[in-house]
């Protein structure tokens, strides 16, 4: 009881709360204090529960009666299986089989045993029958229908799931040499579009689940790692000084792919409504490995790989380039001179350089170590994992990415006790040394003889940038990630349990970048400058939950009730030091002559919810799932902070109906499911509703305060109504599985920054809900089956496809907003405007465009039309796994069907940039029919502008579909007998390849169709070849 004393104590580090609205502020300190008291009281109650149950546990043990003994074997080969979970029902106590497949469990008042092991059909048998026949045979489960899958705040099985979700497991993740675990999702789950933004290690990845539902608010899915939400917003967003070659830094880089057990993507209302206001964009549940399935062991793996750019941009050779250049001057009727054409007349003509090779031709080695230890006993198990990854880039050896991490999972589950405790702790730190610039790849189109250094030994600045000088621009980031969570479960009585999750995570990013004056062209008048910054994000979560389950004969009833309180804080600052006497001092802030920029930010976000779910199963074939959540978010005004969300999901396992079961043996499993519900989105900035003043610099050496926001306490959640129907079929005794689903998501109450006239003050816009409606519809299909299924050879093939459509259904008053320049009712949200390219005039060689307003001039915006859209039409993946004796083989191919815009300047002939060989199709004389214009290079000529406009026209639109060999892994497992004789449990050797081929329409531009487009020129994805050795002790 002495613990209670702590409740009254003040926690000194909580900031004073500031009230938010116009109303007079009343004792807000007490409010927060009350919250803290609650939180502390809560922890204490947990402790009390914990200690009290140690006693009840002992009591329970003394009640034990007979002991049941059994042995578990595989039905296929009769081998004993080690590590099988034997759960005693309905109490839920469990034991694990030993290496002889044996187990013993006290009977108490329980009646059934549930025997489960991954890859086998879960079996439930009466204790009586075990007592009579202790040998239990497990059938191999081909379809994995009873595989346990994670859903929001609980688990279900594939068979009984009423919602739509997809999952990948450690099997698919572990074989890929990747930095960010999200890369493993590429093409693997229908409805989930993963776009790699950049091929550099640690590069940004964007993920869209079932299309884009919001016009302006964020569209990131909600990430939940072991129950604790993670803020997925990029760590270095909003500060251009720290943007580097990698682009935005995803906090998910911090996770070690090797520690991930599974990733579940929840898509429909039934699965996501339990996450209420944050479920609209889908939910990604990441579960770390806990050592649940397996035995005590020590794994060690080392993987070494080599990476190179998967697609090297293609350009014409030096002689062809020069021919085009001279042709351009002839067309322009201009004589080249040393000022306008030094590439032809001044610079060295021998030894042309291969820029692609110079820039990114390096073969970048990488090395990765993983060690994990699993230790199990009757009442506890624990897993410790250490990992290290070091990878340099194709640009240079100095530019590298490094990550070290450790994860600890601990589960305390004392035999016959009512308490269970799970603890997860993760720490990782990554370091990234790169360059402070946006695009490096673009330099490959520099003239083959562009001199890096001029005759005086200085950087050559004939073009505004110099590739060599970029190496002086340093950008370094280092991110520390710390996460901890504790789940305490207390089984009050069989069927009723209480659990509480307490979790926190923290990312701390520190950034440095320096930009020496000499690395900039002299006309920029740059000074030496260094930027120093840091940003920390802290996230705390308390989540109590009660689960109840009851078996009423033919009907199973499950209910869950829970609550969440979450607080996130962001805190960051940065300064810029300018003017250094030497570039050697540029890493010091003290050595700067002055500070010319200083900034700090702080924001806090709080979130409060209650949620409940009721699930009814009747006869094992009718399932009703009802979920509800009430959410409150501090991002909204007082009047609209709370919102209600919920969903109804239904499933009918029709294959279990007698009429089918007996008459159609072809169908081994069939399920129809449907769901409808409402989810929300709150991805807007914090404090948008406040009437506040912010600092507006100085006036007369006094600080000045300017109004920042307009008071609007009315705006609230964006809502997405999701409808989903699906059919799941298993044929030929589950050898062939089919899964087809259709979804219809309608999003309204759009959160947009509603533009205000300047008349209304210094705002520009205010945050508001708007009646605009966005619809996403799509079809998702999966087909998988065993093409060969023999004892010594198994070949499984699975393919998934998603077709989707996005449409802005309505946007009342769009013409009055600046959104009219970007969106059009009836069109996709990702539309792109441009001139309508009609072709190249066969007489003049000059491109022609449609003059929409017929004023005789081609200009923006009057002559723009919708030329393409950015979102894909369909995407999917095809996976093949073959197991043959000790070999296993895993091939994954990803495909995307979309349009994209190429960088037209990449093939325009005659300019000072080297074009791709598509330029050879140029117009040369009257009568030529082609889509490449004449060569031109002189800005003042009439054709030059018209030719340049091609990049902003439909001429840039190409078929951007691609098919990519995403991953290939071959593994050989050494014979058990041999490995045992070496004193090892297991030994295997593997080879894996990543992004090893890409097929696409590359005749205009051979740039990576995924990472580069019309405007961005990011690094192509890397193709990686890796060798892996795994030892289990």
């Amino acid at each position: 009881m002495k613990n209670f004393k702590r409740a009254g104590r003040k926690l000194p580090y909580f900031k004073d709360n500031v009230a938010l609205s116009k109303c007079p502020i009343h004792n807000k300190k007490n409010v927060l204090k009350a919250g803290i008291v609650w939180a502390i009281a809560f922890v204490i109650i947990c402790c009390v529960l914990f200690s009290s149950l140690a006693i009840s546990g002992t009591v329970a043990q003394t009640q034990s009666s007979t002991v049941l003994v059994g042995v578990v074997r595989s039905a296929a080969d009769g081998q004993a299986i080690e590590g099988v979970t034997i759960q005693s029902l309905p109490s839920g106590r469990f034991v694990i089989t030993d290496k002889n497949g044996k187990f013993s469990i006290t009977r108490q008042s329980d009646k059934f045993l549930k025997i489960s092991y991954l890859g086998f059909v879960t079996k439930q048998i009466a204790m009586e029958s075990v007592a009579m026949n202790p040998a239990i045979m497990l059938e191999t489960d081909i379809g994995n229908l009873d595989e346990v899958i994670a859903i929001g705040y609980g688990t279900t099985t594939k068979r009984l799931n009423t919602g739509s979700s997809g999952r990948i497991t450690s099997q698919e993740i572990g074989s890929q040499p990747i930095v960010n675990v999200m890369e493993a999702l590429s093409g693997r789950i229908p409805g989930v579009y993963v776009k790699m933004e950049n091929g550099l290690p640690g590069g940004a990845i964007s993920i869209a689940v079932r299309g884009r539902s919001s016009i302006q608010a964020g569209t990131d899915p909600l990430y939940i790692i072991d129950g604790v939400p993670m803020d997925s917003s990029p760590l270095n967003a909003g500060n251009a000084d720290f943007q580097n070659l990698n682009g935005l830094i995803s906090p998910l880089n911090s996770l070690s792919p090797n520690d991930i057990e599974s990733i579940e993507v929840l898509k429909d209302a039934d699965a996501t409504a339990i996450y209420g206001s944050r479920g609209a964009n889908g939910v990604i549940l990441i579960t770390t490995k806990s050592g649940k399935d397996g035995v005590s062991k020590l794994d060690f793996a080392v993987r070494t790989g080599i990476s190179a750019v998967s697609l090297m941009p293609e350009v014409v050779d030096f002689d062809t380039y020069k021919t085009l250049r001279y042709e351009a001057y002839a067309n322009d009727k201009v004589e080249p001179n040393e000022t306008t054409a030094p590439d032809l007349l001044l610079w060295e003509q021998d030894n042309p350089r291969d820029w692609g090779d110079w820039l990114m031709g390096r073969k970048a080695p990488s090395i990765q170590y993983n060690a994990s230890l699993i230790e199990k006993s009757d009442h506890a198990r624990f897993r410790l994992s250490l990992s290290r990854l070091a990878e340099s880039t194709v640009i240079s050896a100095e530019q590298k990415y490094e990550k070290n991490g450790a994860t600890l999972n601990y589960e305390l589950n004392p035999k016959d006790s009512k308490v269970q405790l799970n603890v997860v702790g993760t720490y990782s730190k990554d370091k990234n040394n790169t360059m402070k610039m946006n695009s490096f790849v673009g330099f490959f189109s520099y003239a083959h003889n562009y001199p890096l250094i001029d005759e005086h030994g200085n950087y050559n600045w004939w073009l505004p940038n110099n590739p060599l000088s970029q190496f002086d621009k340093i950008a370094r980031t280092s991110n520390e990630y710390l996460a901890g969570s504790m789940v305490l479960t207390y089984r009050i009585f069989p069927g009723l349990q209480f659990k509480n999750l307490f979790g926190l995570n923290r990312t701390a990013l520190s950034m440095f970048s320096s930009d020496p004056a000499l690395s900039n062209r002299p006309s920029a008048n740059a000074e030496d400058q260094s930027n120093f910054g840091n940003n920390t994000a802290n996230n705390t979560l308390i989540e109590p939950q009660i689960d109840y389950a009851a078996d009423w004969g033919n009907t199973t009833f499950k209910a869950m009730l829970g609550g969440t309180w979450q607080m996130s804080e962001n805190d960051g600052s940065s300064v810029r030091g300018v003017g250094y006497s030497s570039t050697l001092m540029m890493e010091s802030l003290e050595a700067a002559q002055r500070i010319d920029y200083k900034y700090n930010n702080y924001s806090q976000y709080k979130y409060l919810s209650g949620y409940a779910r009721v699930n009814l199963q009747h006869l094992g074939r009718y399932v009703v799932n009802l979920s509800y959540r009430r959410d409150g978010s501090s991002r909204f005004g007082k009047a609209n902070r709370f919102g209600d969300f919920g969903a109804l999901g239904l499933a009918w396992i029709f294959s279990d109906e007698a009429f089918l079961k007996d008459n159609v043996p072809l169908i081994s499993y069939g399920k129809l499911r449907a769901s409808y519900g409402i989810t929300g989105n709150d991805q807007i900035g914090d404090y948008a509703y406040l009437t506040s003043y912010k600092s507006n610099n100085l006036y007369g050496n006094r600080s000045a305060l300017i109004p920042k926001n307009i008071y609007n306490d009315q705006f609230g959640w964006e809502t997405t109504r999701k409808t989903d129907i699906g059919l799941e079929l298993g044929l030929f005794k589950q050898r062939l599985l089919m899964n087809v689903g259709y979804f219809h998501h309608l999003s309204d109450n759009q959160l947009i920054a509603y533009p205000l006239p300047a008349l209304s003050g210094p705002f520009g816009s205010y945050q508001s809900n708007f009646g605009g409606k966005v619809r996403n519809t799509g079809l998702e299909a999966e087909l998988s089956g065993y093409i060969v299924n023999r004892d010594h050879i198994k070949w499984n093939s699975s393919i998934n496809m998603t077709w989707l459509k996005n449409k802005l259904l309505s946007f009342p008053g769009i013409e009055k907003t600046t959104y009219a320049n970007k969106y059009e009712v009836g069109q996709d949200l990702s539309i792109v405007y441009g001139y309508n390219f009609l072709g190249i005039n066969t007489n003049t060689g000059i491109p022609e465009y449609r003059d929409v307003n017929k004023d005789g001039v081609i200009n923006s915006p009057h002559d723009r039309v919708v030329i393409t859209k950015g979102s894909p039409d369909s995407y999917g993946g095809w996976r093949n796994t073959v197991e043959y004796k000790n070999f296993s083989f895993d091939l994954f191919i990803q495909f995307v069907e979309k349009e994209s815009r190429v960088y037209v300047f990449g093939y325009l002939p005659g300019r000072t940039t080297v074009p791709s060989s598509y330029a050879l199709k140029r117009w040369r004389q009257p009568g030529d029919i082609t889509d490449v214009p004449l060569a031109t290079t002189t800005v003042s000529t009439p054709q030059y502008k018209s030719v340049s406009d091609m990049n902003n026209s439909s001429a840039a639109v190409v078929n951007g579909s691609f098919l990519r060999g995403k991953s290939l892994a071959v593994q050989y497992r050494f014979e058990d007998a041999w490995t045992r004789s070496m004193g090892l449990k297991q030994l295997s050797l593997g080879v894996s390849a990543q992004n090893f081929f890409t097929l696409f329409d590359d005749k205009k531009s051979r740039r990576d169709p995924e990472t580069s487009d019309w405007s961005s020129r990011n690094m192509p994805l890397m193709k990686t070849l890796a060798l892996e050795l795994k030892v289990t002790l």
Partner: protein
Amino acid sequence: MKYLLYTSLLFGLLSFYSCEKLLNVSQPASMVDANKVFEDNKLIEDALMSIYRTVDINNSFLPYLGLYTDEYSTNSQLVDYQQYLNNALTPETSIGILPVWRSLYSVIYQANALEEGITFDEKRLSTEAIRRQLLGEALFLRAYAYFMLVNLWGDVPLITASDVNASSVSKRASQQLVYDQINKDLASAASYLENNDSGTKIRTGYLAVKSLMARVFLYQQNWKGAKDASGFVIEKMPNLSQGIDAVFQAGYFETILELWKQNGVSQGSVYIPTNVTLSPTFFLRNELLSSFELDDERIGKYFTRNNTGSYFPYKYKQRVSGSIKEYDILFRLPEIYLINAEANFKLNKMEEARLVLNQLRTRCKLSPLAVDISDQHLFEEILQERYRELFGEGGHRFFDLKRLGRIDERLEDVKGNWNPDFAVFPVPMQEIILNKNLDQNIGYY
């Protein structure tokens, strides 16, 4: 029983989800709740400082206004510059118009919000004196903003409350209504700031209010009011200087109100070429050059030339930050003398008008005008003096030509293709798109 206890405890815990207070968040230190601002004398004064900061027309607008009238010309081929030079503005013109419209209405919003915040609960501010001073300054700044708006755009929306729902759909008010508001604000400001010498020229004092009053009365042809207000200012201020070297330096005694600049650099950064061999972007028109008499001391001191031979404005002499500070001057004494002279003239007090004007002439080492000068000649001399003394400042030339009804004749004469509709500016396109009640000025589409 134990279970019951636990369960009820847990349900108690769960019930906290309905408690809104758990959602209260702390705010970043750089953001202050509006209510807090109005509870704190220092913070509310900071909010007033922001209004001064927002009145930013000198560098971003006056040079272009010089191109628009008969003051400056340019060789720059930048589309926007050419539009000003050729009096061919469009609603989409990006420089000048929109920033000035935006900054003036931002001044108005901030002044409205300040007025509401102060008057909402009078007891919140500790002293009546502070309340009066802050209100006085805010109302003065609002009057100044409306004065500029009405002279640049004609009829403009009249917004005196911070409610954006109303302001974002407001219609134009007639110029007369706007002027009524200006007069009202100035009268209130005068009563609030009466005999209040702020002790600094970067804040509004009583004399600044009187100066704007004088100017507004002059524009409204209230000659008596203009004479009285300007006379009051002249009486309270020291005599005009002899010597004009430091007229535009910060804190100069002739200055009545100027806007503080952090780097101490005003228009010098716009007009003065970075080196003597570069031709200036803005140079004086011959019409303006030739209006100066040869022995005028202002030659070389108000404008000068470099190696390229073009004369460029040189009132503000600091191109980059240095030990001498220059701020954006809004009101200075010579203008008040000119107002006084013109008002006297209109009141048929020719002799007084002549004597006042002569004080300005002797200040520039020009010979005084003789007693026998004709009335018409005297009036023209007053106007010429305004042209010479105030070029490039505060929109004076443009406004003078308009209020005297001379703009059509003069600009047709100087530029050749003048359209009388262009005496008012186009309303920025963005504003019309966003507010359907706002229409465009005649002549623009």
